[in-house]
């Protein structure tokens, strides 16, 4: 891998893993919790957000040299709202059932902090291509976060995955998981899991270090 490809990869992976918007930065919580009652909803929401993110970051980046700093927030918001409107109509054209399931949360993508945050922190300072790659990484990271919640909530709360029943008729769905409190609980549990992983990694490193010093 040549250095520039490595950079690009790094740029991309920042959002997917190291700075994952859902689990590390805790951004964009409203859609994360509201629409993840099923995997299909979570996936569509993630993809919609990603498309808006990529398109807005591209345009913001293209206009970065002619945007006076006093009006930049206004410019970003208008650009984001434009692409959200586009996605809104696209979803209506693709499937009304999906549109009804996601409800107002499609239009609420406008106020998703991830997008404005990316526009301000990254796209406004970088050329279009890296900005869009970074945005794509963030979008995928966000989609992964949504899916992590959607899978758990759909399996536990409805006993299905992608609408297909997983368990026999005897399964009593854990209804609370698809209700609002379930969203909070599942996300909390994921965060606990990740901080446990982090903790374990740290402990192992320390153990190794201690071992190395003892051997020496």
């Amino acid at each position, binding site marked *: 891998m040549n250095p520039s490809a490595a950079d690009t990869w790094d740029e991309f992976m920042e959002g997917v893993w190291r700075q994952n918007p859902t689990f590390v930065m805790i*951004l964009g919580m409203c859609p994360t919790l509201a629409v993840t009652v099923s995997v299909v909803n979570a996936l569509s929401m993630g993809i919609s957000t990603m498309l808006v993110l990529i398109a807005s970051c591209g345009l913001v980046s293209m206009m970065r040299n002619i945007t006076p700093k006093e009006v930049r927030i206004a410019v970003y918001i208008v650009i984001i*709202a434009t692409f959200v409107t586009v996605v809104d109509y696209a979803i209506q054209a693709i499937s009304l059932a999906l549109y009804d399931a996601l409800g107002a949360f499609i239009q609420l993508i406008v106020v998703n902090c991830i997008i404005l945050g990316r526009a301000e922190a990254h796209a406004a300072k970088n050329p279009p291509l890296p900005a869009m790659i970074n945005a794509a990484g963030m979008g995928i990271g966000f989609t992964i976060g949504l899916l992590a919640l959607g899978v758990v909530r759909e399996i536990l709360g409805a006993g299905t995955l992608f609408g297909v029943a997983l368990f026999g008729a005897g399964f009593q769905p854990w209804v609370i998981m698809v209700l609002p409190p379930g969203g909070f609980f599942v996300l909390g549990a994921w965060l606990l899991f990740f901080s446990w992983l982090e903790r374990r990694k740290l402990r192992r490193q320390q153990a190794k270090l201690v071992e190395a010093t003892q051997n020496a």
Partner: protein
Amino acid sequence: MHESAFQIFVNALLANNFVLAMFLGLCPFLGVSGKLDTAFPMGVATTFVMLVASLCAYGLNLLLGYFHLEFLRLISYIVIIASSVQLVEMVLKKYSPTLFRALGIYLPLITTNCAVLGVALFQTAREYDFVQSVTFSVGGGAGFTLALVLMASVRERLTLSNVPDLAQGTALSLMLAGILSLSFMGFAGLGG
């Protein structure tokens, strides 16, 4: 079908609480709910912005409907909200500099609070009339404030107690929010 103003208010405040049942405005809910001193003014400021945004959105919607420009709805709502936040900022700065300083950074962030845009979008989708819209926005704002204050009080208490290291921070807040949300489910059917 006509919902009375009282029903709308009670529903927005408790049964369909903006934060705990509809997941609107979670960012400030998790971010500003650390201390009671900031939680309450934040809630009041947000409520005020919601009211202003709701009024503007109502007028704007009539205008857009008249000219058949519904596809510009989202973009004009967000611009209106951004401007009304700016307005609240200026008013506060002039008449209550102390509060203005206390709210500081969180004030401009109200623009990206989904609860504000949510009020505007929901009242349009439900075709509320003027009185209904106003009650809805005030009820929603009060519900937001209530959730914020409850959360802040619980979290202030928790700083004194012994919580497992692993659960510190956001994970703990989320679990708390889940329990609060669970108890708010008991209000369902209240505004029937």
